[in-house]
């Protein structure tokens, strides 16, 4: 079949279709988001029926796909590394109880991290929950491992993880497509309460069986680490994932490939038992390189094992080719002159909210209205409200509402004069994990303002639909859940829906909300700041009526509010005359800055309506 340039995530998505999965669910999150999108793109090629869904969160995604596997069908669930924390509950039990149809859990890690709140290692999570985990070193290998994982899963009736990292997910490689197969499964759930209900009485037996399965997997011949280079060199390197690929290129470029035995571990947990026992006796010294924690390293026995734990490899972070080169020079006692020193690179430009982003108007207004407020926020594009001084905390999905309540209580118990706490949460994040926290805030009478920044999409990860859309992952119509209905159902006593572009009105509503929360019968107040994301090409309402602006250098006082407080990328202060300048290439003519300038130097340009 045809050869295509596929991103790692596209290769995984394609492989799930090729392997005949019947149920695939996900919640978007960088670096995993494109996997389900690739599944959707390949739906037409699927050999049998295939249900795809963006679930409300990772826990829901995991549980739904798991049940599909109970019926004997092949199923998969996809998420980013911190998504597995949300799905930890179903995940940790599913290894004891097992599966029927092949069940692969794709969890994308983000060493660095590049776009995450931590760089946790899912392979460590796999060890904790006792689930086998594959660690691909390229998009092509990730594709192969999907099939291997499904087969291993079916043979042992266990969930099996595939753990790509950012560098695999967002790499592209030429890959030859295969014809999707139809495993021809019909749903056949066999009732067995001792297993599927598994009360505590059954669990010791199930746990013992899980241990036996893992011991057998650790003896699988095909999963013995693959060696290259000389058979029994003095020095050996054990590597996995992208670190293996980086190292293989590095040894090649440094002319060391014939001096070191290089092992690639494809299944870091459970590590092959013979390998873990014999390696230390085969080589004089051994270096382990893996991302992000010492999962392989801790399973190797011997005093000559070096890696993350003894500081031979830094204890944190991504193993870039540059870093690995210096590790290699140390480990092999090469002359430091081998290292090609380059000056430390400068930090690049920081990201910011897009020009015209409705969140910018919301953040500007919130900070202007409550200069002494406390502003917990959350995960999404809107974390960049940080640049406007309107984001004080960011923790994990949905945390802002609960943290806001915690802030309020800590201040309120010291006296009546508590600062206004305004939490900002995106629409997708609200559905994902904000809802239980809002219920709790009502019950606990937390006097906070919850600003739901509803841009009608999951913007950061590439415009996936939210429950409010009533659109399913494959584009077909689905049910619809509306935010204001949920807010009312939670028992919120104050709710306003505002257009964030109307700064004056939003500010008035925020002040009303502040008066409400301070009333004797007050509680949490909700403001829904609603305007679609400008980047959402599928939304016809996304582009506002253009209001072209002009800047008057005569009126501009150079106060810098449009640059510092409003932080629009299209506006800068001229290096010489310190007056505000507009970059017409970046400006999208949202016109909001007209309301921001205190000197009246920004006005509508009625001549330019192009």
């Amino acid at each position, binding site marked *: 079949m045809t*050869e*295509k*340039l596929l*991103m790692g995530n596209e290769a995984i998505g394609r492989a799930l279709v090729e392997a005949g999965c019947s149920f695939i669910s996900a919640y978007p999150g*960088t*670096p995993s988001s*494109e996997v389900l999108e690739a599944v959707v793109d390949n739906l037409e090629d699927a050999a049998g029926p295939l249900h795809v869904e963006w679930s409300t969160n990772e826990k829901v995604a995991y549980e739904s796909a798991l049940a599909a596997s109970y019926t004997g069908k092949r199923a998969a669930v996809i998420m980013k590394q911190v998504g597995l924390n949300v799905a930890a509950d179903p995940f940790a039990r599913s290894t004891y109880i097992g599966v029927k149809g092949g069940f692969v859990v794709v969890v994308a890690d983000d060493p660095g991290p*590049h*776009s995450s709140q931590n760089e946790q290692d899912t392979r460590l999570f796999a060890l904790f929950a006792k689930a086998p985990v594959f660690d691909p*070193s*390229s998009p092509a290998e990730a594709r192969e491992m999907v099939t291997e994982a499904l087969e291993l899963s079916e043979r042992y009736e266990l969930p099996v993880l595939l753990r790509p990292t950012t*560098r695999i997910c*967002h*790499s*592209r*490689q*030429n890959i030859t497509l295969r014809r999707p197969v139809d495993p021809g499964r019909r749903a056949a759930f066999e009732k067995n309460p001792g297993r599927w209900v598994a009360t505590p009485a059954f669990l010791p037996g199930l746990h013992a069986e899980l241990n036996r399965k893992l011991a057998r997997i650790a003896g699988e011949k095909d999963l013995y680490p693959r060696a290259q280079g000389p058979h029994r060199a003095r020095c050996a390197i054990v590597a996995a994932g*992208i670190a*293996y*690929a*980086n190292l*293989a*290129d*590095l040894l090649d*470029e440094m002319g060391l490939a014939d001096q070191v035995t290089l092992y690639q571990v494809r299944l870091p947990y459970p590590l092959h038992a013979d390998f873990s026992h014999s390696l230390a006796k085969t080589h004089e010294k051994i270096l382990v390189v893996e991302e992000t924690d010492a999962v392989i390293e801790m399973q190797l026995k011997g005093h000559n094992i070096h890696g993350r734990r003894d500081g031979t490899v830094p204890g944190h972070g991504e193993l*870039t*080719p*540059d870093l690995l*080169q210096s590790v290699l020079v140390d480990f092999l006692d090469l002359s430091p002159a081998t290292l*090609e020193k*380059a*000056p*430390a*690179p*400068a*930090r*690049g*430009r*920081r*990201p*910011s*909210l*897009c020009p015209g982003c409705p969140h910018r108007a919301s953040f500007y207004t919130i900070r202007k209205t409550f200069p002494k407020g406390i502003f917990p926020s959350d995960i999404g*594009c809107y*974390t*960049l409200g940080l640049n406007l001084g309107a984001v004080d905390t960011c923790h994990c999905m949905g945390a802002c509402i609960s943290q806001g309540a915690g802030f309020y209580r800590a201040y309120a118990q010291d006296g009546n004069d508590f600062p206004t706490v305004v939490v900002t949460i995106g629409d997708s994040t609200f559905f994902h994990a904000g809802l239980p926290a809002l219920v709790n805030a009502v019950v606990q009478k937390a006097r906070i303002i919850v600003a739901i920044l509803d841009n009608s999409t999951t913007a*950061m*990860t590439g415009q996936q639909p939210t429950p409010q859309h009533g659109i399913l992952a494959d584009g077909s119509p689905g049910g619809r859940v509306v935010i204001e209905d949920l807010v009312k159902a939670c028992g919120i006593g104050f709710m306003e829906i505002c257009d964030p572009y109307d700064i004056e009105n939003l500010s008035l509503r925020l002040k009303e909300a502040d008066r409400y929360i301070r009333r004797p019968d007050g509680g949490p107040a909700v403001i829904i700041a609603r305007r679609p994301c400008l980047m959402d090409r599928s939304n016809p309402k996304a582009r506002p009526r253009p209001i072209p602006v002009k800047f008057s250098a005569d009126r501009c006082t150079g106060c810098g509010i449009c640059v510092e407080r409003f932080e629009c*990328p299209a506006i800068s202060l001229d290096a010489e005359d310190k007056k505000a300048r507009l970059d017409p*290439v970046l400006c999208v003519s949202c016109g909001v800055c007209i309301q921001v300038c205190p000197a009246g130097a920004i006005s509508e340009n009625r001549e330019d309506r192009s």
Partner: protein
Amino acid sequence: MKQQIIVSGMGGQGALFLTRIIAQAGIEMGLETLTSETHGMAQRGGSVISTIKVGKFKSPLVRSRQADVGIFLHPDNLPVHGHLLRPGVRPLVNTPKPGEWFNLDATARATALGSPVFANLVLLGFGVAKQLLFCGPEAVEKTIAAISGEKFARPNLEAFRHGLEAS
């Protein structure tokens, strides 16, 4: 044939699209091709970098002083990603300012063609004409036509050809 290429820009400038065009040209020529890209938060206007490696490689990443070609869609990124260039390599930079690089004001030229979004392809054309890349104009034009989609194929090809003739 082995070549390591970096494409540096600010989020939104089309570095990802340019990366795909070049990598696809590698495949058209029957070469093993690997890329790495920046996605996620940095895409919101921050500095981004992609790498392309054609030939026998296992990793898509480029080490310091190893890149054979540097394409800079924004001059502010020279101090950020310039260390990846092999010593002596003159990068291709989208800027009106001359310097230790091949300069072209691709944004101004693209704006004159209709939109600054075409600057990436104008710059690519300029680089291909200078024979900096492993691929010639035919292979690139073929991939532009194949990847662009109906609406943009023509303006994209126009922008690329404009760059070809700018050198």
